[in-house]
C-alpha cells in the first residue's frame, strides 16, 4: 500500500477537495503532471483551431482574386491564426512540457507553488475562452465613414488588426466594434498566466533541485525552461503596459498611439517588438531543450559541448532583447539605428550557430536510432537551419526592406516556429509518450506522421520564399492575376492540406497508442536523465525518495562506464539496477507529502474574464462579479488549511491511515 499522506482533521471553514478520480479531481488538481497534461490537451485543441484557420486562409489564396472569404473574414482569420498559434498553441504546449517534466528532471515532488501552477493553467483556459468568445459577442466593421457591401458575419467579427495589432489601424477609429478589445484584453489575461508560471518555474529551479543536482548538472531542457522563464518575466510586463495603453486608447479616449492627440503609432511597434522578439525565443528555446535531450539519447553519446549549448541558450535569450527594431526596418528609424539593429541581429546568429554545430557534433560518430522522436529532432535541425539562414538575410537591412511584409517573412518564421518549435515539440511528445502514459506509441504511424509532415511542411512554406521575393505581400486577401503568383499558391495550399493529413495521423496514433499501445518497458530509450529512473506512467509521488545526483546524465552513468577507448560499456549491475528502481519507485517506503488539491485556483481565475467583459462593455455589475470572484478566490486561497506537518502530528496521520 502506498503511503500518501492526506490532511487530517480540518479546522478551517473551507475544506480541501478530496476527489481523487473523476472530473472534480482534474478541476481541483495541483499535481504538476495533471496540469501539464491538461495544458497539453488544451493547447493541442487550439492548435487544431489555428490549423483550421490556416486552411481557410489557404483556400482563399489558392486562386487569384478569389472570393471564398470576404476581406473582413480573411483579416479576422489571419489575425486569429497568428494569435492562436503563438499564445494559445505553442506557448502553452511548451508550458505543458515545463509542467510535466521540470520537477521530474530536477528530482522534485512538485513545483514550488503548486496552487499557483493550477492558477496559471486556469487563467490560460479562461483567457483563451475569453478571446474566442469574440466569435459570439464581438463586433467589427469598416473604419469610421467607410462602407461595406455585405454584413461582416460571425467569422468576420473576430479581431482583425493582426496579431501585431499595429496602431492606429487597430485603434477604435479604424477598427470599430469590440473585437480588438477582446484581443487586447484576452492577451492581457493570457500574459498573467505566463507570468505566474514563469516565476513559479524560476523559484522551482533555484530552490527545489534534488541533492547533487548542481546547476551545471541540470538537463538542457531544464536550462531552457529557466531561460524561457526569465524571458517571460522580463518581456511580458512590456506588452502588458502596451496592451493597457491600447485598451485605454480604445475604451477611455486616451491617445498614447494616436497622432491627433500627440501620440505616436511607432511607439506601439517599439513596445510590441520589445516584447515580440523575446517572444520568438520563448517559443523556440523549449524546442532547443527537447532536441538537446533527444539527440544524445538516440545517438548514445553525450551532448557535444553541454556548457556551450547552455550558455548559447542564455546568450540568445539576452541578445534577444536587443534586436527588436529589425521588425521595423521599413519604418522611419534612422540609418544609424538600422545599422545597429542589423548588426545585433547578425550577432544573434552566432550563438544559434553554436547550438546547431554542437547538435551536429552530438550525432557525429554516434549510433543513431532513427525512431520517430529522433526523426523529428533531425528534421528540426534541417528545417531550423533554413529559418535561421533566411533570418540572416533579414539582418542585411537593405535586403530586408525588400523582404519585409512579404511572404518571404512568412516562410522565414514558419521555418523557425513550425519547422523549429513544432518539430521539436512533436519530437518531445513522442519521446516522453511512454513516460506519461506507460504505453508505447506506434512507430510506423509515427514515421508516417513525420514524413507526411516534412513533405507537407516544405511544400507549404518552401514556395513562400520565392512568392515573397516575387512580390506577394503578407495579409493579402486577394492578389491580382497579373502578378503571376497563382502556380505556387496552389502548391502551398496542397502542402497545407498534407500537413492536415499528417496531424490526423498523429491524432490516430496518439488515441490508439494511449488506449491499446504496448506496455512501455521501464527504460524504453536507454535514457540519460533522472526522469527515466521512475516507473512509467509516472507515479503520483514522482520519486519514492529524493534521488541523489552525482553527474550530468546521472542515469546513463549509473548504467554505463567507459572502456579504455572511451566507448560506452554497459555495467553488469545495470539490469539489476533497473529492476530495483522499478520496485522502489512503485513502493515508497517513507511517508510522502503531496500538495493538496484546491478549489480556489479555478475560482480566482474565473473572475478575470468578467473583469475583461466589464471593461469592454463598461459594466459595473460585471466588474463587481469579477471582483467578487477574485476576492473569494484569494480569501479562500489564503484561509484553506495547509497540509499537516508530518513530523509534528504523527497521531493525526496514523488516525488518517487507520481511516483509509
Amino acid at each position: 500500500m502506498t503511503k500518501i499522506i492526506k490532511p487530517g482533521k480540518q479546522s478551517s471553514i473551507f475544506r480541501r477537495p478530496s476527489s481523487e478520480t473523476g472530473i472534480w479531481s482534474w478541476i481541483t488538481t495541483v499535481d504538476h503532471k495533471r496540469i501539464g497534461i491538461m495544458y497539453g490537451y488544451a493547447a493541442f485543441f487550439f492548435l487544431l483551431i489555428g490549423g483550421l484557420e490556416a486552411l481557410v486562409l489557404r483556400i482563399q489564396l489558392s486562386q487569384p482574386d478569389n472570393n471564398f472569404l470576404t476581406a473582413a473574414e480573411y483579416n479576422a482569420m489571419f489575425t486569429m491564426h497568428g494569435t492562436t498559434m503563438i499564445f494559445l498553441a505553442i506557448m502553452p504546449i511548451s508550458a505543458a512540457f515545463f509542467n510535466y517534466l521540470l520537477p521530474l528532471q530536477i528530482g522534485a515532488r512538485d513545483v514550488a507553488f503548486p496552487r499557483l501552477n493550477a492558477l496559471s493553467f486556469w487563467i490560460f483556459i479562461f483567457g483563451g475562452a475569453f478571446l474566442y468568445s469574440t466569435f459570439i459577442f464581438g463586433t467589427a466593421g469598416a473604419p469610421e465613414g467607410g462602407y461595406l457591401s455585405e454584413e461582416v458575419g460571425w467569422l468576420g467579427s473576430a479581431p482583425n488588426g493582426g496579431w501585431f495589432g499595429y496602431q492606429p489601424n487597430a485603434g477604435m477609429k479604424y477598427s470599430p466594434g469590440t473585437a480588438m478589445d477582446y484581443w487586447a484584453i484576452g492577451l492581457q489575461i493570457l500574459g498573467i498566466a505566463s507570468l505566474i508560471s514563469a516565476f513559479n518555474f524560476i523559484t522551482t529551479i533555484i530552490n527545489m533541485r534534488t541533492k547533487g543536482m548542481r546547476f551545471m548538472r541540470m538537463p538542457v531542457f531544464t536550462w531552457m525552461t529557466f531561460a524561457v522563464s526569465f524571458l517571460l518575466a522580463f518581456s511580458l510586463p512590456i506588452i502588458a503596459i502596451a496592451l493597457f495603453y491600447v485598451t485605454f486608447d480604445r475604451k477611455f479616449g486616451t491617445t498614447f498611439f494616436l497622432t491627433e492627440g500627440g501620440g505616436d503609432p511607432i511607439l506601439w511597434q517599439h513596445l510590441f517588438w520589445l516584447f515580440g522578439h523575446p517572444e520568438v525565443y520563448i517559443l523556440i528555446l523549449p524546442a532547443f531543450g527537447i532536441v538537446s535531450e533527444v539527440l544524445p539519447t538516440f545517438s548514445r553519446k553525450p551532448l557535444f559541448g553541454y556548457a556551450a549549448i547552455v550558455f548559447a541558450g542564455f546568450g540568445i535569450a539576452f541578445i534577444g532583447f536587443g534586436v527588436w527594431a529589425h521588425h521595423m526596418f521599413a519604418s522611419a528609424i534612422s540609418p544609424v539605428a538600422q545599422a545597429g539593429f542589423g548588426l545585433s541581429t547578425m550577432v544573434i546568429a552566432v550563438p544559434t550557430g553554436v547550438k546547431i554545430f554542437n547538435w551536429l557534433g552530438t550525432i557525429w560518430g554516434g549510433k543513431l536510432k532513427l525512431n520517430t522522436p529522433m526523426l523529428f529532432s533531425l528534421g528540426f535541425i534541417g528545417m531550423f537551419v533554413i529559418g535561421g539562414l533566411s533570418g540572416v538575410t533579414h539582418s542585411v537591412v537593405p535586403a530586408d526592406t525588400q523582404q519585409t511584409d512579404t511572404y518571404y517573412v512568412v516562410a522565414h518564421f514558419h521555418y523557425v516556429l513550425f519547422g523549429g518549435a513544432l518539430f521539436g515539440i512533436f519530437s518531445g511528445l513522442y519521446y516522453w509518450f511512454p513516460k506519461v502514459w506507460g504505453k508505447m506509441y506506434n512507430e510506423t504511424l509515427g514515421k508516417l506522421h513525420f514524413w507526411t509532415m516534412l513533405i507537407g511542411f516544405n511544400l507549404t512554406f518552401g514556395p513562400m520564399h520565392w512568392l515573397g521575393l516575387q512580390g506577394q505581400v503578407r495579409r493579402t486577401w486577394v492578389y491580382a492575376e497579373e502578378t503571376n503568383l497563382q502556380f505556387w499558391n496552389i502548391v502551398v495550399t496542397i502542402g497545407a492540406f498534407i500537413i492536415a493529413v499528417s496531424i490526423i495521423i498523429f491524432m490516430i496514433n496518439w488515441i490508439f497508442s494511449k488506449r491499446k499501445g504496448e506496455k512501455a518497458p521501464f527504460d524504453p530509450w536507454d535514457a540519460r536523465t533522472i526522469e527515466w529512473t521512475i516507473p512509467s506512467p509516472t507515479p503520483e509521488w514522482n520519486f519514492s525518495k529524493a534521488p541523489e545526483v552525482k553527474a550530468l546524465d546521472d542515469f546513463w552513468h549509473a548504467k554505463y562506464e567507459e572502456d579504455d577507448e572511451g566507448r560506452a560499456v554497459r555495467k553488469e549491475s545495470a539490469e539489476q539496477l533497473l529492476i530495483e528502481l522499478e520496485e522502489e519507485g512503485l513502493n515508497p517506503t517513507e511517508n510522502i507529502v503531496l500538495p493538496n488539491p484546491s478549489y480556489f485556483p479555478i475560482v480566482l481565475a474565473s473572475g478575470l474574464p468578467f473583469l475583461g467583459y466589464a471593461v469592454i462593455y463598461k459594466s459595473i455589475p460585471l466588474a463587481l462579479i469579477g471582483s467578487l470572484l477574485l476576492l473569494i478566490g484569494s480569501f479562500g486561497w489564503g484561509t484553506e488549511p495547509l497540509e499537516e506537518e508530518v513530523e509534528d502530528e504523527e497521531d493525526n496521520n496514523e488516525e488518517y491511515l487507520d481511516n483509509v
Partner: protein
Amino acid sequence: MLIKKVFKLKNLRYVFFLFIYSCIENAPLDSLSPEGPYARSIDELFWITFWIAVVIFAIVQGALLFSVFVYKEKPDSPEPKQIHGNTKLEIIWTVIPVLILAAIAVPTVRTIFDLAREPENALKIEVIGHQWWFEYKYPDYGITTANVLVIPADRPVRLEMWSNDVLHNYWVPKLNGKRYLVPGQTTYLNLHADSPNEFWAQCGEYCGLSHSKMRGRVLSLSEEDFAAWVKNEQKDATAFSSDDLSLAAEGQQVYLNAGCTQCHVINGVWDVQGDRIAPNLTHFAIRNVFAGAALKNNPENLTKWLANPAEIKPGTFMPNLELTESEINALIAYLETLK
C-alpha cells in the same frame, strides 16, 4: 530508401527546373529583377548573402545527412566513443561565423547609408497614404494626382511621404525597398528608374480591410514625355457649358449634382481650396488604373465600380450613390474626357 529515391540526380533536375520556372515568370512585383540603381544595390547585397547562406546550408544539411546515413544504427555498430566536446572545434565554429557575418556587415552598413542619402538634382514628390490609395503631389509643378506616379527617367526622385490615416508602406520592388507612411511624421524614399517603363507598386503594411487592393503604378518617362506630361497636368479641365447636350456634358451634371464633389476635385470644374479625401480627377482619363490601382481604367470596370464601390474595395469611403444606369453611362463618358 525514400530519401535515396528523392535525391537521385535525375529527380533533382526536376526540382531545380521547378525552381527556375518560378524565377523566370514575369512577375510585375518581382524584387529580384531590379530596374534601377537603388534596387540593384539591394539586389547585389541580397545575392552575396544568399550564396553565403547556400554554402552554410549545404555544409549543415550535408553533415546532417552524412551523419544519418553513416552513423545510422546497424546490427554490428559498436557503442560510440563518449565525446563530451572539443574546445578547439567549438571556438572555430564560433569564430568563423563571426568573420562571415563581419564580411556581410560591411557592405550592409555602407548600403544603408547610401540608400538614405538624398540624391543630388532629385525631383521632390510628396506621397500621401490614404485608405486605400496613394496620392502624389509635385510641389515644384503644382500638380496633384493619384494611383499612377509619373517620374522622369533621367533623374532620381526623392519621395517625401506621410499618411493621412493608418500606417502604409510604399513599395515599388523593381526600384527600391519599402518605406512606411506614418501619420504625423515624414519619411523619405529615393526612386530612380534605368529607362522609361511602367512598374507596379503595392502597399506593404497591413492597413485594414482593402489592404490587398492598395496598389499603384509608377510610370517613368523620357525627358520630353515627362515635360509634356507636366504641361498637360498643369492644365485645368474644360467645363462643359450648361446648354451642351452631349452625353459627356450630361455626365458633368451628374458629377456636380450626385454628390461626387463632396470628396473629389476636378480643377476648373469644381475648384476648392485645401485637401479633399478622394483622388483628384482632373486628368483621370490618362491614368491607366483607378480605385487604388485595383482596377484597369476601362468603361466596364468603371460601371462595376460606380454601381457599388464597396463590393470592389470593402470598407471604401466612396458611398454607393444609387446611380441609375444612364447616369453611370453619362458619368463614364464625362470621365473619359478628362485627359
